[in-house]
């Protein structure tokens, strides 16, 4: 039962704690999700902003490049050299001008799109210009600039006409977009920058701030990413933004999500700590509450257990004013009821026990009062001994049913007379019966009561004897009464106690009973002295009795004298 209640308590704790932990976890995950979403949003916004700035920067650079190229194209010496087809001079002028604007390449193309001079490849004369679309743009009078892959490198090219004053050739200036340029942009924006172009349906990385492995990953993953998306690179998840920068070239800006999440790590750590502390506090609170709830339950259980073991003195103490308090009160009331019933039952049981020895009245008095009356003591008592003459012979001859029926009739006749005279029935011994007076409750006239009872018994038994004689059983009834001191008290052992009187007086009364013939009530002299005025008696004389050194003076009570007033008789009537 204790285990069950402990588990009830632990269940309570577990449910409490579980709910709290669930709420904490939900809160934590909600915040985490929010933080991640927020970080993503922030990064995406940064990327968007960066790409806007980037595009603007590229625009500005393009414009600067176009402007610078246009300035170069206006140079009269260049015009002169070109117009006069002075190839060596033109090449020299171009190299000079390339250094002036710090361009990576300067080219001169004919109006029909053939490369005349390429500062990077002096031998590449006569090859078709790699970006004919640009020439068409320039021909249409527009600012012609684009990102173009030439060999393994990307260039931002600007094309302007050499005017003399009509177009006589195309001047092309280019800046390489290489890893260094990407690194410059990274310094500017703090973002990873990669330039890719589509070659035969696949993306090729031309320049990047990423390492080789990430370049390959990026090239593979890029087709899946749209204008903005998430890519899984070496450094974890990266948010990317893809911007076309001209032709089939795109620039990809990336920022690792971890970088954006880093500032939130501390916050999440604090959040986790708070949640952990909350769980610990909730655990303590749950234990306290569970204990408070379970303690009265345990108290009640303990009480119930004691009641089950037969202890009705239990009164559980539950101070709460709640349902459990009410339950405890009800429990106490129930135990009170049980206790009362037990008490009543005990009393009845005891009274029944007492009634074996004492008159019902005395038994009630005894059971209501204390049992000290039954403690060992010495007292002057009057003892009545009576039995049936010829019973032993009868018992031997007769069948058991007859014996028992006769005894039953006999006892039913004499028993009530014992109680009627408030005598104490010391014992039945088959046909024999020993009753004494003045104990355990003292009375003023023990001898008189004894004699009156003896007379009444004799008269009542006489009727029975007549009946039995008619049935052919020759039986008689004799009585002996003596008076004297005796030791009285409870004898026996646990489970079988008797209330017994021990002393000469009992022996004497037994002897007198033996001496008595049928119908005789033999009393000792002291008894007679007490009842002389009440009875008709005749002296029998001094009888030598076994066990007594001197003869005992004995009287035979013939009957009771008629009484004007009968206080004893009224007392004898229940």
């Amino acid at each position, binding site marked *: 039962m204790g285990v069950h209640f402990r588990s009830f308590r632990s269940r309570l704790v577990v449910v409490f704690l579980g709910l709290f932990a669930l709420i904490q976890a939900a809160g934590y995950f909600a915040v985490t999700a929010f933080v991640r979403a927020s970080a993503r949003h922030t990064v995406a916004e940064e990327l968007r902003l960066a790409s806007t700035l980037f595009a603007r920067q590229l625009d500005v650079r393009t414009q600067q490049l176009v402007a610078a190229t246009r300035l170069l194209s*206006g140079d*009269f010496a260049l*015009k*002169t050299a070109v*117009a*006069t087809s002075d190839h060596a001079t033109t090449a020299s002028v171009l190299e000079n001008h390339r250094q002036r604007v710090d361009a990576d390449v300067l080219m001169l193309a004919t109006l029909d799109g053939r490369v005349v001079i390429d500062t990077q490849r002096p031998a590449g004369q006569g090859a078709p210009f790699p970006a004919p679309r640009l020439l068409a743009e320039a021909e249409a*009078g527009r600012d012609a600039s684009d990102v173009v892959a030439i060999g393994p490198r990307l260039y931002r090219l600007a094309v302007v006409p050499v*005017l*003399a*004053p*009509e*177009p*006589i050739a195309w001047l092309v200036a280019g800046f390489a977009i290489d890893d260094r340029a990407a690194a410059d942009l990274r310094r500017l924006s703090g973002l990873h920058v990669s330039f890719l172009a589509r070659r035969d349906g696949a993306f090729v990385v031309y320049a990047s701030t990423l390492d080789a492995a990430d370049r390959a990953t990026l090239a593979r993953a890029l087709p899946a990413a749209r204008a903005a998306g998430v890519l899984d690179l070496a450094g974890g998840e990266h948010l990317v933004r893809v911007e076309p920068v001209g032709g089939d070239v795109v620039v990809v800006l990336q920022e690792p999500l971890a970088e954006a999440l880093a500032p939130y790590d501390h916050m999440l750590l604090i959040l986790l700590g708070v949640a952990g502390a909350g769980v610990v506090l909730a655990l303590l609170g749950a234990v306290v509450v569970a204990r408070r709830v379970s303690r009265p339950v345990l108290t009640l259980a303990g009480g119930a257990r004691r009641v089950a073991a037969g202890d009705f003195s239990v009164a559980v103490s539950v101070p709460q004013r709640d349902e459990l308090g009410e339950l405890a009160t009800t429990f106490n009331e129930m135990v009170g009821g049980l206790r009362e019933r037990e008490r009543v039952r005990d009393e009845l049981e005891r009274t029944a026990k007492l009634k074996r020895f004492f008159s019902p009245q005395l038994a009630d008095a005894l059971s209501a009062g204390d049992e000290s009356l039954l403690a060992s003591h010495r007292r002057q008592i009057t003892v009545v001994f009576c039995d049936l003459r010829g019973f032993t012979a009868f018992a031997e001859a007769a069948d058991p049913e007859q014996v028992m029926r006769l005894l039953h009739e006999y006892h039913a006749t004499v028993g009530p007379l014992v109680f009627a005279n408030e005598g104490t029935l010391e014992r039945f011994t088959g046909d024999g019966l020993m009753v004494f007076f003045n104990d355990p409750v003292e009375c003023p006239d023990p001898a008189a009561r004894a004699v009156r009872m003896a007379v009444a018994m004799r008269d009542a038994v006489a009727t029975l004897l007549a009946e039995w004689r008619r049935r052919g059983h020759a039986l008689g009834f004799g009585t002996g009464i003596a008076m004297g001191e005796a030791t009285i008290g409870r004898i026996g052992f646990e489970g079988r106690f008797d209330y017994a009187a021990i002393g000469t007086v009992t022996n004497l009364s037994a002897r007198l009973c033996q001496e008595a013939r049928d119908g005789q009530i033999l009393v000792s002299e002291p008894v007679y002295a007490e009842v002389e005025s009440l009875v008709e008696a005749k002296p029998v004389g001094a009888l030598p009795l076994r066990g007594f050194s001197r003869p005992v003076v004995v009287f035979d009570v013939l009957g009771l004298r008629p009484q004007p007033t009968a206080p004893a008789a009224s007392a004898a009537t229940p």
Partner: protein
Amino acid sequence: MAAALTAALTLPSSSLTAVGAGPGDLEAIVKDERGKPVADAVVSLTSPATATRPRASPALMDQQNKEFVPLVLPVAVGTSVTFPNRDNIRHHVYSFSPAKRFELPLYIGTPAAPVVFDKPGAIVLGCNIHDWMVGYVYVLPTPYFAKTAEDGKARIADVPAGAWESRVWHPRLRTETEKTTTPVTITAGEPAQVGFVVTLKPDRRPIRRPTYEGAQGG
């Protein structure tokens, strides 16, 4: 056009007799393919039979308000052209055209020596300090030419009667001038008529953006 040219080249000598019959006029009209009149086109007449000696009277190509005026100056071979600068800043006139390569480095006023255009052909004039300044001197091997006005019309007067080849040239002409050759017969009295439909390239001259100075100068 080629057929017309062939026809002109195989004209019978009878046409020569007509020359002596007194001079006549040619009225030409030049339009683009959409029927829009083309100005500044030069229509000329040449005769393979007559070695016409061009008159070489001096001509002027002004620079006014940082523009060449006129835009197109047709002259006969051997003409001396002076380039008077009427602006208060210097100009640097140049030409890289094969027909006449020259340079008048930064000058103001009228240069002392005129430029003599002794070979036929189109000469594109530029100014080294003003990108938008473009002018054309069109040198013809014949004294019979005229420039179309805004209405696309030109009139060549006092042309000896006879069989001629007419051609048109324009700075933005897509085809070669040779291919525009059209035979005409000039007679005294009624002017001969010729019409050209030409295709022009888009005007790609550098745009002169308005400046404070320019705006003030109107």
